[in-house]
């Protein structure tokens, strides 16, 4: 097992940041801790690194109990949100730091250090910048140096605290793909914290969704996205339309409109329910294709890159709904603001929990 967390709890005064959380991560995996800000994900990462002490619980890294080791002996690589490069040291010195502070007996020779640093900087494609200072590099370049620095000490695990959030969108995407590729090469057990569901879905082998210091769900991106365990996960993983209603005799009410309830909820007699529909799972057409279609009017048209976002007012529904359709369809149907359309709701997810968004 790469990382085992057992019953971790951490409170700050009255506030429970981590609530009896346990988690197992296989060796060599790249894991995303995904959650809204303030959910405790960064605190958890800092506890693993030893930068915060857990109130209780156990931390086992690569089969070694590190719970009570001081941070410098935990041997984790940590990459900070704002890089935290040593501003007075050159890129070379930054990466060499972890090797140069080793006790004399364990310290590699000068030439070994030099070789290792050059190798790492080549790996992160920064070998051209040996003598630069951090202030002379762009954000993406700094983060790559920070990654090389963390890898220099051969860490048991690599922890990345929102590593891309301080970068602009373009660089963020580039660096994301690059990190995935790098991880496939070096295979060190890694956890990265993010509040960006796209980043988690694209990058991680497994996603751990955290809310209020607890794990809501864990699984592969596919599992988590297609089979969200609860309303929170569904809501957090993408844009949604929410309908509050009741589930009754196998039917779910959406305003005045009714659709079939999912199989597992068919037998419930009556219960309040929340129904979720993703904007891209809403079909739009000019003609009514079946009786369940809703008549609606386009209120707003928004350009979302390859997709078109529509804001629709539908008959019998309490509020407006959001739909996303391919641009081609939008052009073919000759849609525009004010046009009457028919709306097909293809896939609904129904949750009966009392979860509030």
């Amino acid at each position, binding site marked *: 097992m790469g990382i085992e967390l057992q019953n971790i709890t951490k409170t700050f005064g009255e506030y429970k940041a981590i609530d009896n959380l346990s988690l197992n991560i296989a060796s060599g995996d790249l894991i995303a801790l995904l959650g809204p800000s303030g959910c405790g994900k960064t605190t958890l990462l800092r506890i693993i*690194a*030893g*930068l915060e002490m857990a109130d209780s619980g156990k931390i086992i890294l690569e089969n070694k109990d590190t719970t009570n080791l001081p*941070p*410098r*002996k*935990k*041997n*984790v*690589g*940590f990459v*900070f949100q*704002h890089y*935290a*490069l*040593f*501003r*007075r040291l050159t890129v070379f010195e930054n990466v060499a*730091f*972890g090797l140069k*502070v*080793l006790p004399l007996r364990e310290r590699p020779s000068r030439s070994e250090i030099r070789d290792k640093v050059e190798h790492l900087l080549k790996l992160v494609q920064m070998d051209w910048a040996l003598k630069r*200072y951090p*202030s002379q590099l762009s954000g993406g370049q700094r983060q790559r140096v*920070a990654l090389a*620095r*963390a890898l*220099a*000490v051969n860490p048991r695990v690599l922890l990345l605290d929102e590593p891309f959030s301080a970068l602009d969108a373009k660089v963020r995407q580039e660096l994301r793909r690059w990190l995935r590729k790098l991880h496939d090469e070096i295979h060190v057990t890694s956890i990265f914290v993010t509040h960006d569901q796209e980043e988690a879905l694209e990058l991680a082998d497994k996603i751990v969704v955290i809310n209020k210091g607890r794990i809501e769900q864990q699984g592969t991106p596919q599992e988590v996205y297609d089979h969200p365990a609860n309303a929170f996960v569904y809501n957090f993983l993408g844009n949604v339309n929410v309908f509050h209603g009741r589930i009754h005799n196998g039917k779910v009410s959406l305003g005045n409109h009714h659709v079939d309830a999912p199989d597992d909820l068919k037998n419930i007699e009556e219960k309040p329910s929340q129904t979720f529909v993703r904007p891209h799972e809403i079909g739009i057409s000019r003609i009514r294709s079946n009786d369940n279609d809703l008549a609606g009017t386009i209120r707003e048209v928004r350009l979302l890159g390859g997709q078109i976002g529509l804001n629709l007012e539908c008959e019998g529904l309490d509020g407006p709904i959001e739909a996303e359709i391919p641009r081609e369809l939008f052009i073919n149907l000759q849609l525009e603001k004010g046009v009457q359309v028919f709306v097909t709701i293809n896939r609904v997810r129904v949750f009966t929990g009392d979860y509030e968004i």
Partner: protein
Amino acid sequence: MTKPETVRSNPPTVKKRISDPLSVQIFLIGLTFLFFIGFIFLPLGLVFSQAFQKGWSFYYESISEPYAIEAVKLTLLTVAIVVPINAVFGVAAAWAITKFNFKGKTALKSLLDLPFAVSPVIAGLIFVLLVGSRTPLGTWLGEQGIKIIFSTPGIVIATIFVTFPFIARELIPLMEAQGRDEEEAALTLGAKGWQIFGKITLPNIRWGLLYGMILCGARSIGEFGAVSVVSGHIRGQTNTIPLHVEILYSEYNFTASFAVASLLVFLALLTVVLKKGMEKHFQKNSFHL
């Protein structure tokens, strides 16, 4: 990371429109110059004209007579002790306040300013009341053969108290701006406490520290009130430069008094030059911040 150049590069047309009328400019600039002349240039000029009133040889005699030399020596000795001690105190205090969370932190931070708020005379009196010859602590120390009041240790202690905040106050905003990230990074990379301090923290604050030390030194040289209370004005033994100036003055020995005072002016000018040099360096290196 904005460089000053980018701020200054407003298009000239905008500059013209937003600037004040010429008359206001002339008035304000004139007022500033008048103030400078009245309160700085004129008094400084008077110090030197008085100092040299009886010629070069008298000036030289005044500053090279044994008591004057002793006063200079004592002042320099005080500075040499006070500045390093306050550097250690200041770094420790700034480190504690900016890198740790503990109870009483806010109180400590405001108490740091106390030596600025308290009149130096009171500062001196505090130590007389604490370790003067008539207090229990002072009596006990006297029995051990340690004399604090009316001797060099008293002068040093009073000066430490008065000049304590300079370095800490210079460092706290700097260290706050730099945050704990680099120290934490060093920690996860396996560095020990002293390695982090020596390799990361100290290099990051060195210019601020040096700047604070210069200010601290300047204040130590010129400190009068607190030192006056604890020194006892014993010529050749517990007289610093400012005290020596005052003694000469009260003896109506004006020319000698101003001659010695001119030494203080030179030291002050030296401080200003050093400070200016440091500020330039600060700006040049500000991209590291």
